[in-house]
């Protein structure tokens, strides 16, 4: 008989909260509950990512939906006694939005959550990812039942096609069409692959989905396998995601135990099984043909397409490869119907999309929103605006393959097409917000350093070209830019796009092209005036000391002189200090250590 509880404590144990100590907090709560003899009345559940990672460790106390943030082990005894025993929710652990005084007690009243629509993340924070019964209790595997008992494989493909679902991994290829192609491909052996090789800096959508709801991915793959006629599948997860690998492994084992994977699934004649392949973390392995090579045990290098994997994929057999988020969305489309799904979104892009919102925004975290929402709503309503009320400068979407979108396009309703038109892309859903203190040339340099490092080296334009672009960008940020650099960058970009085989090379120049398009003035300032408008490129800054301030407020504290490794500061305690410009190497460490804001950047 199921035990009755009066409170369920839903404690986030996504990677973000775990690194803030959530496992320790969970242990402490369990211990304290035992001490207070409340453990028979109150259950603690370690859930997957709750979304608002900036505030971790997070607890949501059910049934009242009280939201607590930034808890630590020492808060636990008070929390247990006050709230769990005496029923008095504790204000000081609640979330108070910036610019407001009163905390918001309830999760569903916090702005971050109210604008979100959860499809792929439907179960986040509501179940224990390591308990299959929790998933089943929330309609889990009901879509599979519907698919294999009520629908023919063709009808499943049709429903997915009708829903307008497009690949969530980046390219946005219509999922139904892909399934159709695999279904029609000849051959008795077909494969299904889940692409969980998420490698964009600052992106963690797929990791979170697998960590918080691994069965949703398995169920999606089962439905896909039934639709295209596959009997075997692979989940490709990068090894840098240990928690995700652990949870999907547990989930696969449980599903196999219960007969949801294996032979004669749910007593029908449908057979399908799954294996996990761990990736070693090469960015290029997110590209489908490179990923397939990696599963086969070969070097992770892309190959020419066509033939597409739908015709000749894994071991030359027809292969249906979709991204984690796509698979997690499939069961909902089957349960709630294609019309429901396509009622959300824009003309060309239906449903919802998960984004990881990071950078200079107050509420960093994981969000799911309907397609067609504007960037402004995401950054200012959900994200809570820019940290320290600074000015918004740009948002980078689509990871290192995407581009930077400037402030005058904040009202852009986002979908696959609008982002491409703006010079960026949907990508897998990374969103890096930048403020006035971000240098756009430096950002382009950062992303190029990533793609140049991650280029597999097969195509010369990508291998050599990204390296060359990186060299040019680096010298511009160091004040050694040449007048022809912008033109060279543009030419190189076009050549790399044209001459590379796979998506990595074809998109690597995007950060440069989009910043050249929207922030040309910053490039010009670096190259011709040798100045960085954002004052972020230190080599271009001239550091000077406001002598009056140094003496009056800092009393010549002498810390900057001691910090300077180049003996480029003169002065002594209780005297105004001075930078000796000829000796200054512009490392900026004096600027960092001055507590009195006496050091200025010229």
């Amino acid at each position, binding site marked *: *008989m*199921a*035990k*009755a*509880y*009066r*409170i*369920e404590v*839903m404690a986030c144990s996504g990677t973000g909260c775990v690194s803030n100590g959530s496992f320790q907090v969970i242990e402490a709560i369990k211990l304290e509950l035992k001490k207070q003899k409340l453990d*028979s*009345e109150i259950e603690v559940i370690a859930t997957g990512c709750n979304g608002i990672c900036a505030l971790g460790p997070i607890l949501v106390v*059910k*049934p*009242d*939906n009280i939201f607590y943030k930034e808890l630590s082990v020492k808060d636990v005894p008070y929390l247990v006694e006050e709230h769990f*025993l*005496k*029923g*008095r929710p504790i204000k000081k652990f609640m979330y108070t939005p910036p610019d407001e005084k009163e905390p918001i007690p309830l999760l569903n009243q916090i702005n971050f959550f109210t604008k979100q629509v959860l499809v792929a993340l439907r179960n986040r924070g*509501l179940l224990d990812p390591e308990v299959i*019964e*929790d998933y*089943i*209790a*929330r*309609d889990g*595997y*009901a879509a599979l*039942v519907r698919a294999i*008992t009520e629908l023919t494989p063709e009808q499943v493909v049709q429903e997915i096609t009708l829903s307008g679902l497009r690949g969530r991994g980046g390219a946005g290829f219509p999922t139904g069409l892909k399934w159709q192609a695999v279904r029609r491909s000849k051959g008795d052996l077909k494969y299904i692959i889940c692409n969980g090789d998420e490698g964009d800096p600052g992106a963690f959508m797929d990791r979170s989905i697998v960590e918080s709801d691994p069965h949703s991915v398995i169920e999606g793959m089962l439905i896909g396998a039934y639709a295209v006629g596959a009997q075997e599948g692979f989940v490709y997860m990068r090894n840098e995601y240990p928690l995700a690998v652990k949870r999907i492994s547990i989930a696969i084992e449980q599903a196999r*135990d*219960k*007969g*949801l994977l294996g032979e*004669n699934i*749910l*007593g029908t004649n449908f057979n399908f099984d799954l294996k996990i392949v761990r990736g070693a973390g090469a960015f290029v392995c997110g590209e489908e043909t490179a990923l397939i090579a990696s599963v086969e045990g070969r070097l992770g290098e892309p190959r020419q397409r066509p033939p597409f994997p739908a015709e000749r994929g894994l071991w030359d057999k027809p292969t249906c490869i979709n991204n984690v988020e796509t698979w997690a969305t499939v069961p909902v489309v089957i349960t709630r119907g294609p019309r429901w799904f396509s009622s959300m979104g824009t003309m060309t892009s239906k449903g919802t999309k998960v984004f990881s919102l990071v950078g200079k925004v107050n509420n960093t975290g994981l969000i799911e929103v309907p397609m067609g929402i504007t960037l402004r709503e995401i950054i200012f309503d959900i994200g809570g605006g820019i940290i320290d009320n600074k000015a918004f400068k740009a948002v980078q979407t689509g990871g290192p393959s995407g581009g930077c979108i400037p402030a005058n396009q904040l009202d852009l309703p986002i979908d696959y097409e609008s982002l491409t038109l703006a010079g960026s892309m949907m990508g897998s859903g990374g969103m890096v917000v930048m403020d006035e203190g971000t240098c756009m040339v430096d950002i382009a340099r950062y992303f190029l350093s990533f793609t140049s490092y991650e280029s597999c080296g097969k195509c010369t334009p990508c291998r050599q070209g990204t390296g060359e672009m990186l060299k040019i960008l680096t010298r511009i940020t160091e004040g050694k830019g040449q007048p022809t650099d912008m033109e060279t960058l543009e030419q190189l970009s076009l050549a790399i796009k044209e001459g590379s085989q796979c998506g990595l090379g074809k998109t690597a120049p995007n950060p440069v092209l989009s910043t050249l398009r929207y922030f040309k003035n910053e490039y010009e300032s670096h190259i011709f005036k040798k100045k960085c408008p954002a004052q972020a490129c230190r080599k271009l800054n001239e550091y000077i000391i406001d002598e009056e301030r140094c003496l009056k407020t800092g009393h010549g504290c002498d810390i900057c002189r001691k910090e300077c490794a180049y003996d480029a500061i003169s002065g002594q305690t209780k005297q105004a200090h001075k930078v000796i410009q000829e000796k200054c190497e512009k490392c900026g460490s004096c600027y960092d250590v001055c507590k009195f804001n006496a050091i200025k950047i010229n």
Partner: protein
Amino acid sequence: MAKLSIGDLVKIKEESKRKMNLRDGEFKAKITVHMGTCGIAAGARPIVDALLKEIEKKNIKDVLVTTSGCAGLCSREPMATVEMKGLAPVKYVELTDTKILRILTEHALAGKVVKEYALAVGSEKTSL
């Protein structure tokens, strides 16, 4: 582990219903036991115990038990408030575990207020 049939999936879902109702905040009736220091001293905890045990025994799925702080009438603790979805809450005073079980059966499950234990219907205003 035995392989599941389609019927088993429905059964698992049904068995977990109480837990999921708790997570979703879904209920037919909600019983709030007041657990201020006064309530605990007067014996509120055995009341919560009795409620949870009975819910477990009878496999009741849509009655939530929660606690809150002192209700302000410390001399008549232990107290509890029963709230039927969409109706005004009813406060009960000077409870014992037998009394609360009668309230659970008659009020929370059958919708009939147990008048002899009830203090009043409704709540204080929280703003003017």
